[in-house]
């Protein structure tokens, strides 16, 4: 009987607000230690939390985007534990009544649609940072991050394996950026995932004992960690052992997970409703306002691209990887007025390659959709060849300018004059009598070689379709 890997993902997405969850301090990344910690963040005696309306609205926006139920009355609760970077001695979170219940994330894996259900999403505040380096025999505390608003998004344990877990995490990552609730910056910790991994025999009904894996700060690490952990659990069970419920840390240098704390070390957090904060009541009016402000969502847009522009699911997926990419594509189609397929090929091919090479983002691309449209129009009407188009694009990237200007200035116009092409064909046939004879004796390959010679003689400018037609006629 085969083993099945079951994964659930918990994600902490930092909400894109200017100020903290319960104080007015800035959430900007990278400031000098403790310069962005207000009295509330330091937990001075007598201070009180006030919930950040913007963070609440972003959480609702997420809930609506994933078609979850927005809890009309959710409760902030205190999670009590002692740690030096937790100034109050408790974290304000949501426990029994989260702001979002249920919902789903849709994504494609190997061209197949997958839907994964969410358990919940709740608001909470981040802790500060303990800095163990640079302090000999001491620990530094930086409270800049303390109180930063987080949305903890919990998936059901129904992802099957590392690849699917990563595809889910990528889709969630794209979604939170798409709807503008999180900047998605994984290096700065704006989007952090933990994976709950268990294994079971395919025919087993329940779930196996799970381990929670922390420190997955890239998708690559996530895949490696889950694969390692699943293998570890399977080997343990096949050797007659048992999986112990524990929290494990992923070590990217060694490519393995190791135990951080076992269930016996689990703390009693003594959750109870925070008496400093009233129940969070969401009025109908606010819900409908936020719903109206939601953009077209990635899965909806992907399906529309397939339908409206006759694209493959794969291309549509690439073009809806981000809102900026999708917006670029639609602007390109509109400006070019050519086959959408040509637009898609260029955006996912040449444009994407150059963006990668130059380490640029499509949002800051120096070639606007309107500029690229100029090139595509000239390909479509036969003015330039595909090869020349790439040259035009390179020049445009570096120096700017319109396609037509570059084509004229650099003499990239394709030769479509029938008389000139005929003359070239005659010259080539005269100089390559052998190839002509081969073709006539049935060697089809020789024909392509002759077309190549015509193109070479024209220094690439001859219209290849016209050149081929003229050759066939002459070789008759």
């Amino acid at each position, binding site marked *: 009987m085969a083993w099945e890997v079951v994964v659930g993902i918990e994600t902490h997405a930092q909400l894109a607000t200017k100020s903290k969850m319960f104080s007015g301090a800035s959430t900007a990344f990278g400031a000098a230690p403790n310069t962005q910690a207000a009295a509330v963040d330091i937990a001075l005696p007598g201070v009180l939390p006030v*919930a950040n309306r913007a963070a609440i609205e972003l959480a609702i926006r997420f809930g609506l985007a994933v078609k979850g139920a927005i809890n009309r009355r959710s409760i902030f609760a205190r999670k009590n534990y002692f740690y030096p970077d937790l100034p109050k001695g408790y974290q304000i979170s949501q426990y029994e009544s989260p702001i979002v219940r249920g919902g789903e994330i849709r994504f494609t894996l190997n061209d197949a649609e997958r839907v994964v259900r969410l358990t919940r999403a709740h608001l909470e505040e981040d802790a500060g940072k303990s800095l163990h380096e640079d302090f000999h025999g001491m620990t530094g505390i930086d409270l800049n991050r303390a109180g930063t608003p987080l949305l903890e998004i919990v998936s059901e344990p129904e992802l099957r394996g590392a690849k699917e877990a990563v595809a889910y995490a990528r889709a969630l990552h794209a979604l939170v950026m798409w709807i503008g609730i999180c900047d998605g910056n994984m290096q700065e910790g704006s989007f952090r995932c933990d994976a709950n991994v268990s294994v079971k025999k395919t025919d087993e009904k329940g779930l196996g004992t799970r381990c929670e894996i922390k420190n997955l700060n890239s998708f690559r690490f996530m895949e490696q960690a889950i694969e390692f952990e699943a293998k570890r659990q399977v080997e343990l069970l096949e050797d007659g052992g048992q999986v112990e419920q524990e929290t494990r840390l992923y070590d990217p240098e060694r490519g393995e997970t190791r135990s951080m704390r076992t269930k016996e070390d689990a703390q009693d957090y003594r959750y109870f409703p925070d008496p400093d904060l009233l129940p969070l009541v969401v009025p109908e009016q606010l819900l409908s306002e936020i719903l109206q402000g939601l953009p077209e969502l990635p899965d909806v847009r992907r399906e529309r691209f397939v339908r409206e522009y006759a694209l493959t699911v794969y291309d549509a997926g690439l073009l809806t990887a981000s809102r900026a990419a999708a917006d670029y594509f639609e602007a390109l189609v509109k400006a070019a007025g050519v086959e959408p397929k040509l637009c898609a090929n260029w955006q996912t091919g040449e444009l994407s390659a150059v963006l990668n090479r130059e380490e640029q983002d499509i949002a800051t691309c120096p070639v606007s959709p309107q500029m690229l449209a100029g090139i595509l129009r000239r390909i479509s009407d036969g003015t330039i060849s595909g090869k020349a188009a790439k040259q035009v694009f390179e020049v445009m990237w570096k120096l700017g300018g319109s396609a037509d200007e570059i084509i004229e200035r650099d003499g990239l116009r394709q030769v479509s004059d029938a008389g000139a092409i005929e003359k070239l064909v005659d010259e080539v046939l005269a100089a390559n009598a052998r190839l002509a004879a081969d073709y006539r004796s049935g060697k089809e390959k020789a024909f392509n070689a002759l077309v190549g010679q015509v193109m070479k003689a024209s220094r690439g400018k001859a219209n290849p379709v016209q050149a081929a037609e003229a050759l066939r006629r002459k070789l008759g």
Partner: protein
Amino acid sequence: MLNATLAELSAALAAKRTSSLELTRACLERIERLDGTLNAFITVDEARALEDARRADARRAQGDAGRLTGIPLAHKDILCTRGLPTTCGSKMLAKFVSPYDAHVIERFDAAGAVLLGKCNMDEFAMGSSSETSHFGPVRNPWDARLVPGGSSGGSATAVAARMAPAATGTDTGGSIRQPAALTGVCGLKPTYGLVSRYGLVAFASSLDQAGPIGKSAEDLALMLEVMAGFDPRDSTSVDRPQQRYSQELDLDLKSLRIGLPKEYFGEGIEPGVRRAVEEAVRWFAAQGASTVELELPNARLGVPVYYVIAPAEASSNLSRFDGVRYGHRAAEFADLIDMYCRTRAEGFGTEVKQRILVGTYVLSHGYYDAYYLQAQKVRRLIARDFDLAFKKCDLILGPTAPSTAFAIGAKTEDPVQMYLNDIFTIPAPLAGLPALSIPCGFDERGLPVGLQLTGAHFSEARLLGAAHRYQQASDWHLRVPKETPL
């Protein structure tokens, strides 16, 4: 002058019969003379008080004075004051100086009041006798061998001994009203949400309210006008129109329906207390008020409910005192856990530790439902009893405490006996209701008895009006403790 009410002092200042400087000096001199014995103050900053007084006098000279401009006040040492220690009566915060002012302090500052000093109290407001302070017990000015009640015992004593014309206190389960009763002064616990808790060091967040302590109901009204008001920094602060309580004191007693819960007149009340309170009931009836016999069947559960909810919240609220950022930190420790343990073992007193332990226990996995959740359910039943009662009456009358002041040390060994002294004051905060205590006579030992009036939410004006009418016809509130003659 030291026995004058705020209204009288305000009028004297306005008429230039005295100055804030003169008044402040008189208070400081009296503190100097009496506080060595009474121990009502933890901090007195003469220079700052005199500076405040000069500024108030200058403001008055410019014609920019309000009714409390230039009035010296004492504040409970649980309200944060910038530049002065805010100790909460604890070793944990013995040297803590807040970088900001509590909302209440800001309001008095804006009104031009003078800050005389910070008053002694039970450690972190946990107690009914003002004996648990790190700075030593407060003594009752009626008899220095007795406690003044607590936890705002320093504030009540400062007013009773005429060291300050008025003071602030905070009330969680009776901490304003019970010491007011035991020292013969007036104290009001406002409706939950009326006075911002911003800058009030939290004991039990769902119960804590700051309120005034003064010589008369009118004094309380004048103080409350300054203290009450919406504050966006406190999510439980209620946004409602500002009221002029001192202009609403002329209550018609003829249409007043006074509720008398049989639970407030049962067993366990000292005869002297019962006699004085019943005398007050007869006076109200003689003025034409009607009396209604009531039942508050769940009120008897107030004490046990309170001693689950308040410690639960306290155990979490006091977690921030961990030695990491401010306050006491153990001098030596082996590691992080040892630092926490030693710091908190050294920094907190016995009563605080007991309550943290109880609170931690009732919130623990497996006990939460049986204790905390159950207590919250009973709390709602207590509130419902009051809702039903206020359909039949306008205010509820009874004794503030079952006894008058008791001896220092008499109840420290038996917490349950100590806790039972709050049996009548605990239900109002559990229901978020306003309640006040005013003097209504003396027992056979000559110790003051407190009368408690409890009203529906935001009915402070009615409570103050009833108390004011009573004080227009009596002088219990103007009696000066015999051990601290003027």
